[in-house]
Structures are given as C-alpha cells and as structure tokens.
C-alpha cells in the first residue's frame, strides 16, 4: 500500500472523483493557478481546466452561494475555504441555504455539495485564524460533518462526501496536511457516520477526532508506559451523524471515558459525546466522563500561552488518571 501525505490523499480523492464524474468541480480562493493555499489542489487545473477548477475572488459568502446554486441545478460542487475561519462569512449559505433547501422544498431539491478546508488551530496564527468550528457546524440538521485524522480516512471520507447527495462539511487538519500514512489505491471509500478504533484498549476510552486522534494516541502510549494502563483510542471520524453505537460499545467495555476535542468547552462536541454516554451507557460507567478541550479563551499568539490553551497528551493523561482514580 503506498504511503501518502494527508494533503496528497485529499488531492488523490479530488482527482479520482473529478475523473469519475464530470459534474464534480472545485471552486475557491487560490485553488487553480496558485495550486491551492495548502497545495491540496496541486495539478488539478492542468488536468481539468478552468471550468472545473475555478479561482474565485475573496468573497466566501458569494462563492459558497454559487456552490449551493450549482448543486440545486444538479452539479456536485466542492467548495474550498482557505480556512474555516473565513467560512464564517459564508455561514448564511451553509446554514440557511445548503442545509435547508431540501427540507423547505418538501424534498424536491437535494444539495449534493462539499464544503472543505482546514479547521482548528495551527501554530501561532492568533485568535482569528485558530478556531475549531465543528460544534457550530455539527449543530445544524441537514448537514453532515466529517473530520478525518489519517491520510487514508481523509481520502476515503472526501470521496464519500463528494458522492453523497447532501451538503457535507469536511474539516481538514491544517497541522495534518504533512502527516503520512498508508492509503489504499482507487476505490477507497470510508462510510460517513462510522467511527473506528485506532488503538484497542481495555481500561479507558479516549474519544477523539481529527488532530486530537494523534494527541489521544500519544496519551495512550504514555499511559501504557507510565502506568501500565490499557487505553482505547476511538476516532469518531464523523461528527454528524455521530456513531453512537461505537461510543457505547467501547465505553461498555472500558467503563471509563475521556473526550479529547479541539473546540472550546461550552456546548462543544464533547458535550454531545458525554450526553450519549450518560444516556446509553450509564450503568457501565465507573467514573464521571471528563473532557479535554481548548482553553475557554480566544487563542493567544504567544507560543507558551498557545501551548497552554491546546489539548495535549499530558492533559489527556492527567484526565485519564483521574477517571481511573490513580491520583
């Protein structure tokens, strides 16, 4: 199996789906001539031409709306946001148009559309460029939301998203673009709504997604080395729909859980996961479920402060030790 970066896995998914379906096109800022702000679209303009790889002005609301309109007329747009921070300007189109037109038309007009781009904090980009939007987006009925952690899942989920007949939000990790992993060739589809155990364990479940999967895996290693604890790492992969069965199945075995998320604590994705656990696995729990989140502050620029604000393996280890009553 070839080893690819997360970036190239996404590129491969786009290329394969554009080859497969002439209705698929890519639109966004710098996707064509410049080859993509993060080079996810490298080579696509040369292969597919300017009608299918479309550079836009800096007008997120406008080109997100063009995507929705094109989907209404039956195309399969992939709309790239340079980052999800800028997509806030397009929320009206995502929330009021993409997510609602099928319902308010009484089922007449599906919106087969992908909105994708990097989400979450990178390094020292400060408050406006370091935000995790998954709680906002996962709140909305009519949308699907995926957040792949590995190159293989990035490829498989993006391909599934493009083929889906609904608006799908693909949250990519800016810090993940250079990470490498084995990626199956061609028809590799990861179903939306299916979590995966990335490291099996027996004593505590670390629920994670996107960039926090890596944080949880490191924490699991440290727990094994430092305390002989067997931690399971569950990668949600999809945040809407949420694979509730996989969460319950894991917690029913381990009896303890820590949720590791990139967003802020208040009304975050982890709160939803905790709701599932208390509702469906109450009798299996041996300790309250804890959450490791970004600090409840706008992201600071200073390197030390930024590190303090982010979820880290050490914070996850500390939370796991608490639910195991080791401290």
């Amino acid at each position: 199996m070839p080893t690819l970066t997360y970036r190239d896995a996404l590129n491969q998914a786009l290329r394969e789906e554009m080859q497969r379906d002439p209705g698929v096109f890519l639109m966004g800022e710098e996707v064509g001539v410049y080859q993509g702000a993060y080079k996810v679209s490298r080579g696509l303009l040369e292969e597919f031409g300017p009608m299918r790889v479309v550079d836009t002005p800096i007008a997120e609301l406008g080109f997100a709306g063009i995507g929705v309109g094109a989907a209404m007329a039956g195309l399969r747009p992939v709309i790239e946001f340079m980052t999800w921070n800028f997509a806030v300007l397009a929320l009206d189109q995502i929330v009021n148009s993409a997510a609602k037109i099928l319902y308010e038309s009484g089922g007449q007009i599906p919106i087969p559309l992908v909105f994708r781009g990097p989400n979450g904090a990178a390094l020292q980009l400060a408050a406006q460029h370091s935000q995790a939007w998954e709680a906002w987006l996962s709140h909305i009925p009519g949308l699907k939301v995926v957040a792949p952690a590995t190159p293989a899942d990035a490829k498989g989920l993006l391909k599934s998203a493009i083929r889906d007949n609904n608006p799908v939000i693909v949250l990519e990790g800016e810090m993940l673009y250079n990470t490498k992993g084995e990626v199956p060739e061609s028809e590799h589809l990861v179903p939306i709504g299916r979590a995966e155990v990335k490291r099996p364990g027996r004593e505590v479940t670390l629920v994670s997604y996107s960039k926090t999967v890596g944080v949880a895996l490191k924490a699991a290693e440290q727990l094994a080395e430092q305390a002989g604890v067997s931690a399971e790492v569950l990668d949600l992969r999809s945040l809407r729909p949420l694979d509730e069965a996989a969460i319950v199945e894991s917690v029913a075995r381990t009896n303890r859980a820590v949720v590791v998320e990139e967003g802020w604590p208040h009304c975050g994705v982890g709160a939803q996961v905790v709701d599932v656990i208390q509702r469906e696995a109450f009798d299996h729990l041996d300790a309250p479920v804890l959450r490791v989140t970004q600090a409840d502050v706008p992201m600071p620029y200073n390197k030390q402060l930024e590190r303090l604000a982010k979820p880290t393996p050490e914070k996850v280890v500390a939370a796991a030790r608490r639910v195991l009553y080791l401290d």
Partner: protein
Amino acid sequence: MATATAQTAKEQSHVELERRMLRQMLLIRRFEEKAAEAYALGKIGGFCHLYIGQEAVAVGSLAALRDDDYVISSYRDHGQALARGVSANAVMAELFGKVTGCSKGKGGSMHLFDVERRFMGGHGIVGGHIPLAAGIGFAIKYRGGDQVCICYFGEAAVNIGAFHEALNMASVYKLPVIFCCENNRYGMGTAFERVAAVTDVVEHACSYDMAAELVNGMDVLAVHAATQRAVERARGGGHPTLLEVRTYRYMGHSMSDPLHGVYRTKEEVEEQKKRDPISQLALKLKEEGVLDDARLDALDAEARAEAEAAVKFAEESPDPDPAELHSDVLAD
C-alpha cells in the same frame, strides 16, 4: 400579401400575449386578496408578503422566459410562482401549510418551490438567494446549455454584501443571469433613499461592468420587452443584466405590517394606485379595440373563481402526516 398576413399573425399573437398577461395579473391580484382574507381569519400563519401592485413585474418578465429557464425569488414569491404556472391550488395550499402545497406544507409562503417548473424557491434571508442565482447560471454555463436564470429581489437587498459578491462573480464568469430588482421603494418601513447612498439601483451595474436597464414596473409590456433584451444577452453569450424595475406595493411589507402610517402617507399610496398595472393594460387593450368590458369582466370573474377554488382546495386538503416532520432532512 404574404407579408401582410404574417404581420397580422404577429399582431394577433401579440394581442394573445397581452390578454394572457392581463389574465395572469388578475389571477395574482385576486389570489393575494384571498390570501389576505385567509390570513386575517388565521388560516395562514407566520409571515405572508403580498404582491399586490407589483403584478406586472413577475408577469411581464416571466412571459419572456422559456419553460427550461430557471426562476428564483425572495420571500415575496407568490406572484412569480403563479406567473410561472404553479397552480393557484398548490400555492394556496402551501400558504395554508397543507400537504398538497407545492412544498408539501413544509416551506410556507416564503418558500414556494416547484422543481418541474424550475421554480427554485422563495428564499427568506434578504439577498441570500442572489448568489444561488449565480450558481444556477454557473451550472447552465458549465453544461454548455442555453437557458437563463432570472432572480427577483427587492431594492433593500442591494445594500447587502451578497448582492455585490454575486453580481461581481456573474460578470467575471459571464453567467446567463438576469438580476431583476423590484424597486418598490420601501424595505419594510424604510424608504430606500434613507439608507442607500446610490438610489438608482441600475448605477450599481457600472461597478460590475454589467448591462443594465431602468424599467417602468407598472407597465407590463415595458417589463416584458426589457426582459426579452436581457434574455437575448444572456442566451447568446452569457452576459448578465441588472434590471431595476420601479414598482409599488399597495399592502404593508407583510400581513403583520400597516399599509401606511409612519413611513408613507395614505395619499402616496392612493396616488400610486392611479398607475395600477392591471388598469393600465386593460385600458390600452380597450383603446386598441381588442378588449371590451364584458370580456374584461369575464377574465376577472375567471380569476376570482380560480382564487376562490384555491382557498376551498387548501381548506379541504389534509395537514402533512406527522411522519413528515423527520423526512426530507437528508437525501438518500
């Protein structure tokens, strides 16, 4: 002789078109009057924005379109839906929230849809649907089609960013879209000149290197002719047009709002009614000797009967099944 016959046939078909447009305007007028009654009786809920006074805009412009062209509108969408051929029954049933409505009772007054007639919705956020029109235009061009998309919005939408982003991109990408601004002078209770630095909407087209035309929206034939020119530009080479159609709404912004008072006078409304688009067209046809009072009364009676039948149909239609609550959230 052949030329004379052709000329007569052409005139005849134009008279037919004018009569058809008169009939459509009458239907919209009578339909909206019935909707107002039903709203007052509590049979229609929520927001309900009536089209009375603006009939010539939808009727004149849509008469210039083909069946395979696309139409998209704001929340003041009853007139366009009816002029596009969505049945009065399906529109009224939608206003009543019934399952026989054109959106199965799930959209209501502001969200009329009929995909078979390429009626791509009424949309409720001011200006939010203008980029959607550009997207539909993009899809037409992408496929190499020769359809056009017409997009209706009020003058108040011109102050929102979505309008400017959409016009810029439609011009840059050369999309076959007709942006039809129905300037009825007031955004709810705010006169346009109080909130717009540039009060001639057509002037905005200069910023986007776009063709534009100022149109008398109380003259259905002027609207029809201007739209025909815009359609020609769009079909041929994908050149978008901004039409500013000056019109007037006789009713309040929505059924919950006053007809006049703090923001406009009763006298102004009465003065505007003298330009009534239906009366003007009827008068013209009578002067030309192609319509008499009896024929006009018959057309009006037909329109009234159709609107009344629509109310009856809506009243007798069932509510959506409770299971409909959870359907249509996601497509298969």
